[in-house]
């Protein structure tokens, strides 16, 4: 969109215009050193940086240590440590306003139940519900971008239960919610309540704590589109390789592994290092942000997210002519696993700048796509329309291919409405999946107004408004309109009987 086009648009809100104009301004300067070969891969759309901008002036994703903030208050924000529920909720809302990210909105709001629960002693259920309703409504109406994510659990708390009740009632797209599920800690009852809730408002999704908890020594949060990132840090940058297009550059399977993939991955990794170098050394972010000065984030807790999409199509392209399909034939899945091993091996060896937390390595991320990714399936998912007949096969496949993805992957399962009558069945499915090592699962009810596009939530009714060229509150509705169509979201296999 050109600058004047942004200014004159009648389907953008004022806030959306300001953000797009900021992006346009950023893109007028060229500060990154990008070699010719890399530019060529960008032009061929083999790799891209998800439009992160030409001069990064903040890390892509930031996960402040909200617990520390509540304990200490903030000198910069002139806030004393909160003493009661009102002060705690108010303090959080104030800090959210000041947490930068690639979207300009906070992508991580913290573990809401654990943060708020200590302030609820002596507060009645009714009163707590009213205050949380206002808190959540403020978030939904002012953080107008559903890449914003909050966490619940793993422990069951009164605050957690009331938030789930409110979610069913409020039908908010923001924040995206994840229940951190630990079979040792989370009660079956709380898991069931969470899954039941997801059949009314597509929230929360389920994160398998058992397989994710060892990712970082400092703990993790789930941010934006289910990115598993270090607490008190975050993600510097996220670039991605479109494996399907890389496969098209290869003349054979051997050529893909020996020549194409190493070259493409090296180009992308060097590009990511260049972005990280600029953020850390030149942007001044870590030298000036009060979040750093007050110990809410630490520059040594950020990681580079090494994204990829279209494992399914890459596999199918490399096996063209054999009729073997990803997700169905053992030979195809074995080849796909070889690609995963190659990605893992690459990030294990390539030195990532300023990433001490991960031993100087990038972290694999199953990216979920952009709205112009026609015919390219997110991450390691099986393409829509080709899902195995039996849900057990799809979940086993997810467990196998999510194994090496440390910093975010998921699959989405629309459920028949009847599932609401038997949420225990959802508990059984999730427990089985967690047992097998599935890292992250998301459900929604087939006719739900709130639908999960790729990782974020959008309302079908809002998309309809946007299609009719009306301005809509949530920024992400714009992305959702195309992405839901491109991802064939409406054609996903509905599970249940």
């Amino acid at each position, binding site marked *: 969109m050109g600058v004047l086009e942004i200014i004159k648009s009648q389907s953008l809100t004022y806030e959306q215009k300001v953000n797009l104009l900021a992006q346009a301004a950023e893109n007028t300067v060229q500060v990154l050193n990008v070699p010719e070969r890399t530019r060529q891969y960008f032009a061929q759309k083999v790799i891209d940086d998800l439009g992160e901008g030409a001069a990064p002036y903040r890390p892509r994703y930031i996960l402040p240590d909200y617990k520390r903030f509540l304990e200490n208050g903030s000198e910069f924000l002139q806030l004393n440590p909160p003493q009661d529920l009102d002060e705690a909720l108010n303090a959080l809302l104030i800090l959210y306003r000041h947490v930068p990210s690639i979207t300009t909105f906070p992508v991580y709001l913290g573990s809401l139940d654990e943060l708020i629960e200590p302030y609820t002693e002596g507060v009645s259920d009714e009163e707590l519900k009213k205050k949380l309703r206002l808190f959540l409504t403020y978030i939904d109406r002012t953080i107008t971008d559903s890449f914003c994510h909050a966490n619940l659990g793993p422990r069951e708390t009164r605050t957690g239960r009331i938030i789930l009740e409110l979610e069913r009632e409020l039908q908010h797209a923001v924040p995206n919610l994840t229940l951190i599920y630990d079979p040792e800690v989370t009660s079956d009852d709380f898991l069931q309540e969470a899954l039941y809730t997801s059949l009314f408002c597509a929230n929360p999704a389920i994160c398998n704590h058992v397989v994710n908890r060892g990712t970082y020594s400092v703990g993790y949060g789930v941010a934006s589109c289910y990115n598993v990132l270090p607490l008190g840090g975050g993600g510097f940058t996220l670039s991605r390789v479109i494996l399907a297009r890389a496969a098209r550059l290869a003349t054979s399977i051997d050529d893909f592994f020996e020549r194409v993939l190493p070259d493409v991955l090296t180009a992308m990794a060097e590009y990511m290092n260049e972005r990280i170098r600029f953020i850390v050394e030149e942007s001044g972010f870590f030298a000036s942000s009060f979040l750093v000065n007050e110990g809410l984030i630490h520059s040594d807790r950020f990681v580079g997210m090494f994204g990829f999409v279209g494992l399914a199509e890459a596999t199918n392209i490399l096996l063209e002519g054999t009729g073997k399909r990803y997700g169905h034939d053992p030979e195809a899945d074995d080849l796909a696993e070889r690609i995963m091993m190659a990605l893992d091996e690459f990030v294990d060896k390539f030195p990532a700048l300023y990433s001490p937390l991960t031993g100087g390595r990038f972290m694999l991320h199953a990216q979920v796509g952009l709205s112009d990714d026609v015919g390219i399936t997110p991450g390691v998912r099986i393409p829509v329309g080709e899902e195995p007949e*039996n*849900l057990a096969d799809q979940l086993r496949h997810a467990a196998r291919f999510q194994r090496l993805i440390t910093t975010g992957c998921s699959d989405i399962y629309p459920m*028949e409405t009847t599932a609401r*009558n038997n949420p225990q069945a959802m508990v059984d499915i999730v427990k*089985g*999946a967690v047992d097998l090592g599935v890292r992250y699962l998301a459900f929604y009810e087939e006719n739900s107004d709130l639908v999960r596009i790729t990782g974020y939530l959008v309302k079908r009714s809002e998309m309809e408004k946007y299609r009719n060229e009306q301005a809509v509150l949530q920024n992400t509705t714009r992305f959702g309109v195309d992405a839901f169509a491109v991802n064939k979201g409406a054609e996903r296999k509905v599970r249940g009987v």
Partner: protein
Amino acid sequence: MTSAPINRIIPHSLVDGPGNRTAIFLQGCNLRCLYCHNPETQQLCRHCGLCVPECPAGALRMVGEQVVWDEARCAGCDTCISLCPHSSSPKVKYMTAAEVFAAVEGNIPFIRGLTVSGGECTLYPGFLTELFRLAQAQGLSCLLDTNGMVELAQFPALMDVCDGVMLDVKAWDVEVHSALTGSGNEPVKRNLRFLAEAGKIAELRVVCLPGEVDAEAVIQGIKDTIGSQVSRIRLKLIKFRKYGVRGRLAESESPAEEYMQALKAQAEALGFQDVVIR
């Protein structure tokens, strides 16, 4: 090992008992309910061959005197079922308990158990006993879904490996039951008493359709038979729905929500504590 005619196996069913379960539907029934919503499960195939030339996918053929179904070719259009004058289906496979269990096993660990339904599954007690033994050995719970016309007290070995029975009580007055199903209901009442004493009732169900079903009498009759046990047993009041129904009730409307609520209130007044309307 004993074989049984299998109409269908649903790997993950959300509607056949608590939790996620694999549901197995056996072919053949000893009742002819007017409101049956899967009448094609009532009878075994007579191999008359009427469906064979009508199959658009060419998935049916006569081999000697037998209709043979080619599963790989079948498009699942159900033309054969809609044409069958005998309330049957050519798409039924005879499978041993081990073969059926092999199909169930792949769904572990996502299921908590299996439910066998029909048709009328208790027509095959030997098969059920073998299947449940295999399933229980893998930690799966095993439920029967039955019309109660086969006296389960006759099969102690089956009862030993059965975790619970979901029992239909279709009508209470013998005349009403007979008009609705073609048979009297003395075995159902004896099963109700027997299963209650054995602590094996997983759920009681009544399909409700005023004028055809004496649901009020069913609820009262259950209370009179099993007494205070009603407080511990789920009662499912199912609205009649016309989908799949053939014959006189094919166009009948579902009962009103007020009627269902009144039945629920009646049951709760009698001491039922878990009454659901579906």
